[in-house]
């Protein structure tokens, strides 16, 4: 096969067996790969009402047909499961080099079922795979795990692992690969921990082939040039990393501050990518095959927050910074290093801590519950809370449940800034109605990368939309969500779509796989994936009532800045969204739509 390897590993952790299976070629063609094929398997094999932390859940590592090829930024893979944070379908994307290594070893997908009797890791060397004891590794941080496993297997192996947070089933624990890259959101790391699976180790000395070598090469050079010529992918991201967004978003009045009480942060510029470049950046680093090199190798030398690693990215910078009222970049960097080492999502962690800070501010909780002062702006408290939640120590045991369960416990669920119990990322929907609609409708809870409306609404890419209107936002959202689903299934990094689009991506897919992808058929596949995810969530018990936003975004006006006095008019946008998606007014895909997509 070309692009795809056509093969998956099925690992039954309970029985300790490993089996090779062929993936249905029609499934690959119709769902592309990665997110699409993984979601198809989840839908078909996992009871949507299952307890995500029970052995009935499945954990899937899925690369795309382009993963491991010379297409720009073609290093991505997905980790899928039913989420213990949201109870929706979870599909978490990561970069680095793990995905390509899976492909070089000959695998499109690795599926884990059941639960191991004791801590285990999977060692995959080309066509051979075996489960080994991880007893000695349990309790280790991800960086310690990485070093230990390289010694035990192969110095060039690539490793995806959980840290103490995943072992402790922190609801937003993540899977870390290549030391500093992560399948970050929705608690896929907790699912891995619940299965007693410590790590997946892969070494592959084979390779990936493409159907039309000359045609693919030509497309790759064209795409490379487009990305290098574009200001976002060719200049901003390489120079300042994702942190370049801090000042832009703050000046546009939608940088959520102190748990979304405001949209602008006075200390924002002290935490942005420019400040990082000045103070702590050592050099930039790329994922596999990527010309953008947005990765930041950083170090905080000395002081209370000394540490080294990669990041912080824009999202972590905000969640651990402005969202908590913290303007100390060293503290933010330290908290981010901890999130990689312990293996948890810094977005959910930061927003959960911010929620705790507001509960504390309003005296709904006191030091009696928290054991410490939790005031907005307290950098030391924010950093301390990170380790506490990873270890589930003291108040950390409550923080580890995420902002919704915590706020609900203390009688104020409305103070959890989340959708479907997944914490918002770094954009206040009141300042950009399109991203707000995306937050409400995303299949995995609040998520910016499901349909990154910030690109047109704030960055003006591909064209500038007025962020404050609701006009046409449903149309734009749907188009972006469908395109994104296709990109996530292909193995390309989402950042490529700043500079290239469906024509180039479908061409890459066609030349690589030999399958007759057109722009339309690729976008249709994306739409198919989106609808399938929706069907899973409906089976899990979600309804239109869950496509909503916290009362703060619907009713409280932003106090100042470019989006002053704004709220989100979701009641205007949502019906149009359902209608344009071909769903009924209750947000259920109609039979007509399902037949059209081949999902009936």
């Amino acid at each position, binding site marked *: 096969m070309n692009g795809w390897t056509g093969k998956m590993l099925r690992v039954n952790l309970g029985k300790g067996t490993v089996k090779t299976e062929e993936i249905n070629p029609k499934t690959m063609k119709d769902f592309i790969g990665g997110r699409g094929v993984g979601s198809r398997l989840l839908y078909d094999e996992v009871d949507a009402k299952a307890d995500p932390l029970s052995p009935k859940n499945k954990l899937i590592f899925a690369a795309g047909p382009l993963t491991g*090829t010379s297409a720009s930024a073609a290093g991505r893979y997905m980790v899928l499961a039913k989420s213990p944070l949201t109870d929706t379908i979870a599909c978490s994307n990561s970069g680095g080099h793990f995905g390509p290594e899976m492909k070089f070893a000959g695998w499109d997908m690795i599926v884990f079922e059941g639960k191991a009797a004791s801590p285990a890791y999977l060692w995959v060397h080309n066509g051979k795979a075996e489960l080994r004891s991880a007893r000695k590794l349990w309790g280790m941080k991800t960086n310690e795990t990485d070093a230990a496993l390289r010694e035990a297997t192969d110095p060039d192996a690539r490793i995806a692992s959980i840290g103490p947070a995943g072992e402790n089933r922190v609801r937003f624990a993540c899977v870390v690969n290549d030391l500093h890259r992560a399948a970050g959101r929705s608690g896929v790391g907790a699912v891995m921990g619940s299965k007693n699976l410590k790590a997946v180790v892969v070494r592959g000395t084979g*390779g990936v082939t493409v159907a039309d070598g000359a045609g693919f090469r030509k497309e790759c050079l064209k795409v490379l040039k487009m990305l290098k010529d574009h200001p976002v992918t060719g200049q901003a991201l390489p120079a300042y990393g994702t942190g370049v967004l801090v000042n832009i978003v703050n000046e546009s009045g939608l940088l959520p501050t102190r748990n979304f009480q405001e949209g602008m942060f006075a200390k924002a510029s002290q935490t942005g990518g420019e400040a990082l470049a000045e103070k702590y950046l050592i050099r930039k680093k790329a994922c596999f095959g990527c*010309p953008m090199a947005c990765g930041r190798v950083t170090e905080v030398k000395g002081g209370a927050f000394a540490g080294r690693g990669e990041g912080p990215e824009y999202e972590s910078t905000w969640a651990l910074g402005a969202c908590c009222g913290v303007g100390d970049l060293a503290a933010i960097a330290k908290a981010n290093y901890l999130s990689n080492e312990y293996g948890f999502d810094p977005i959910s962690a930061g927003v959960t801590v911010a929620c705790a800070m507001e509960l504390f501010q309003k005296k709904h909780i006191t030091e009696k519950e928290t054991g410490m002062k939790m005031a907005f702006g307290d950098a030391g408290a924010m950093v301390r809370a990170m380790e506490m939640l990873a270890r589930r120590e003291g108040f950390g045991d409550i923080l580890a449940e995420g902002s919704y369960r915590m706020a609900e416990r203390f009688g104020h669920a409305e103070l959890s800034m989340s959708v479907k119990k997944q914490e918002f990322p770094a954009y206040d929907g009141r300042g950009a109605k399109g991203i707000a609609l995306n937050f409400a409708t995303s299949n995995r809870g609040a998520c910016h990368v499901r349909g990154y409306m910030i690109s047109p609404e704030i960055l003006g890419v591909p064209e500038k939309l007025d962020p404050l209107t609701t006009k046409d936002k449903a149309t734009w959202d749907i188009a972006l969500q469908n395109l994104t689903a296709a990109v996530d299934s292909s193995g390309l990094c989402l950042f490529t779509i700043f500079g290239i689009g469906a024509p180039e991506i479908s061409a890459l897919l066609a030349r690589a796989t030999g399958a007759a992808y057109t722009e339309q058929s690729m976008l249709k596949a994306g739409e198919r994936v989106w609808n399938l995810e929706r069907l899973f969530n409906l089976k899990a018990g979600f309804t239109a009532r869950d496509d909503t936003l916290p009362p703060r975004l619907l009713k409280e006006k932003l106090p100042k800045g470019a989006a002053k006095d704004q709220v989100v008019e979701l009641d205007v946008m949502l019906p149009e969204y359902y209608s344009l998606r071909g769903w009924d007014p209750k947000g259920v895909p109609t039979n007509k739509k399902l037949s059209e997509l081949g999902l009936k």
Partner: protein
Amino acid sequence: MKKMIEVNEEKCTGCRMCEIVCSQKHHGRFSPSMARIQNFIFDDEPFYFSLCCQQCDDAPCAVVCPSSALTQDPDTGIINLKESACTGCKMCIMACPFGTMTFLSHTGKVQKCDYCGGEPECVAFCPTGALEYKEADLAGAGRRAQFARKMQKSQSVSS
């Protein structure tokens, strides 16, 4: 005029594109294990660098080869491998001081970088310009200028 692939470690981001386009060109698959160039990504002290054959004069690999399979082109200086003459004895792998001669198990013979005959694929695809194919007497100029700028900074009289 001898040419070389100059590797600027400061520009390298560790993306490994050089490896996979090399293997694709010569072996029809994206496979770092089969590449003639290797990208090193060191995380302990962040440093990224690619290594391939340096096309030496009196190349140790050519000197040691028992079947005279390695010869130097008098114009370009490139050390060419005559595959049909290679017996797979692997002596050249040990003779090369840089370790850039590699063995291919699927052919039983060695392989080495030959600058793709004059249009190196890795250079064409390197996204940051960390790999440059240039006349050898022009190499190093960039680094000299960079260092001269440091001297300039150290002697600066303006505040």
